[in-house]
């Protein structure tokens, strides 16, 4: 039987879930700003989850509770069955990787290679595994030509990829990506898109906080919508983006292609397209059938 933590929750639970948040509240230390109120969330292992919401809705606070950068003011947060409040950020870093929005906040090493090795070394990964992990990351992110460069001498999109790769090399079972595609060019966004898919295929749980609706519509299988410190919707991207009232009340905008589909083919019995490919397929089949 697991011992109880300071707030009376068992410090470890048997669960198949990657993340289990129960009635979590968070009030900033000044006591005036409520950032999260009564949030419940369950994320299955290997799930690809998107978190959306206006600025200040509580997305980043929620994800920072998961890797213990913040402690909930009340409620409990379990990651891989471990009560996060009873662990340090360093302990949690072996379970959950957090990619910050701005890579400049984490890059410091002399070379890209040193940067990629920093995380795994901190959590005691054996040297041969570090070398293998770095080689895999370099290959996947196509960083071969930059490996001996100083991280600040490479372009910003490459720096962003180095930042993501430096967390991927730690091989955590859960990865949080905070605005991974903001300010990135098309090629970097495409690499991030493939990364999320590949991580999920390998069984990694991916939680992506983003305003990039086309990216989420294309990749994630579930979307959590936040408004005013609460979760107000939790469904598939198709259900979420098709809910025009929800989009309106949360001041969010569904991908353009979904809006076009909603106004054109959907009333004619077509799908709620999430990607240009889906809409194109429907139009093509209609053209072949000679339908409108």
């Amino acid at each position, binding site marked *: 039987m697991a011992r109880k933590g300071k707030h009376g929750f068992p410090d470890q639970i048997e669960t198949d879930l990657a993340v289990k948040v129960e009635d979590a509240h968070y009030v900033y*230390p000044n006591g005036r700003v409520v950032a999260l109120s009564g949030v419940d969330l369950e994320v299955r292992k290997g799930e690809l989850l998107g978190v959306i919401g206006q600025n200040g809705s509580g997305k980043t606070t929620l994800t*920072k509770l998961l*890797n213990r*950068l913040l*402690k909930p*003011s009340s409620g409990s947060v379990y990651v891989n069955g471990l009560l996060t409040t009873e662990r*340090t*950020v*360093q*302990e949690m*870093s*072996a379970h959950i*990787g*957090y990619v*910050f929005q*701005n890579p*400049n*906040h*984490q*890059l*410091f090493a002399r070379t890209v290679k040193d940067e990629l090795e*920093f*995380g795994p070394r*901190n*959590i005691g990964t054996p040297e041969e595994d570090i070398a293998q992990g770095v080689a895999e990351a370099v290959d996947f992110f196509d960083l071969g030509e930059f490996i001996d460069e100083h991280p*600040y001498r490479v372009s910003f999109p490459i720096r962003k990829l180095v930042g993501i790769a*430096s*967390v991927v090399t*730690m091989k955590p079972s859960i990865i949080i990506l905070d605005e991974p595609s903001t300010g990135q060019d098309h090629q970097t966004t495409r690499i991030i898109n493939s990364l999320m898919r590949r991580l999920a295929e390998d069984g990694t749980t991916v939680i992506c906080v983003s305003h990039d609706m086309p990216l989420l519509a294309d990749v994630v299988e579930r979307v959590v919508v936040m408004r005013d410190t609460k979760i107000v919707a939790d469904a598939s991207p198709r259900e979420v983006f098709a809910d025009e009232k929800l989009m309106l009340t949360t001041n969010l905008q569904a991908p353009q292609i979904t809006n076009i589909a909603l106004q054109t083919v959907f009333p004619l019995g077509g799908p709620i397209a999430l990607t240009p490919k889906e809409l194109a397929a429907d139009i093509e089949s209609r053209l072949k059938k000679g339908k409108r």
Partner: protein
Amino acid sequence: MTMNTSMPTGMIPGSSIIHRIHPVTKILWVVVYVILAFTTQNIFILYGMVIFAVVLALLGGVFRPLLKALYLIVPVGSSLIALQVLGPAADKPWTVLAEVGFVTLYGDGFYYALVLLGRIVSSMLLSLVMVMTTHPSDLFLAFSKLKMPYTFNFMLSMTLQLIPVFQREVSLVLSAQKSRGMKGSGFAAVLPSFVPVFVGAIERVQQLSISLESRGFGSSGEKTSYRQVTARTQDWVYGICGATAMIGLMVYSIMQPGLWNLSGMIPFSPRTILTSFTVAVTLFASVILGATFLSFRKS
């Protein structure tokens, strides 16, 4: 929930009497305060100044945030007392208080430690009260009224405004590195924490300078301000009274024989000095050992 123990460096909004005092008056107070603190060795005056700064903080409603700055007194005060009792910063001959093995303790050192601590604490507290009760733009305007060169004035104002920004940046960088399993403190944390902040600062300054130039910074002509601060009669009264009182104390402590240095007039008993020394050494050693321990443990 963690308590924020960082130094208060920004303005805390309010409408207290201290907030309403003209910035030039406050600057005048700080200047004469610092001069008085560093010219007198009279500990009654020095600790009177500390109490006065605390009273101003209470009147300004900034006492609680100011308490955070008092954390500094523990390492600074304990190290000063411990080191000064072992080797006073005063002319010889020194009064030997006790000999413990090969270590000799001097009574004069205790007095000088209190003087040095009084200078640091009184200057720091009043300066912080000024910063916490004055809007940076008002400070900027006040300096320009005092005919400070515009560029220098702007530089000073920007520095004050950037300190909280960099504090936030440090906290973000530490979070990012801790998320990659880095120890949160100690020597191993120095490089990963400071390189991103340092590089970020350079980049920020570059962007800021380009942005300023593109908006006409450095052009000639009189500068205007959104904010206007007018000096009221009471501001003049506060300024003149404060400056006169402090200059008076300064002259008094210099001119009066025996008041320049009161070490002979305050007969600290050997027991008081020994007890204070033991407490200071224990505190200082705890700070050093604590910091060393933190640098080696996983936080």
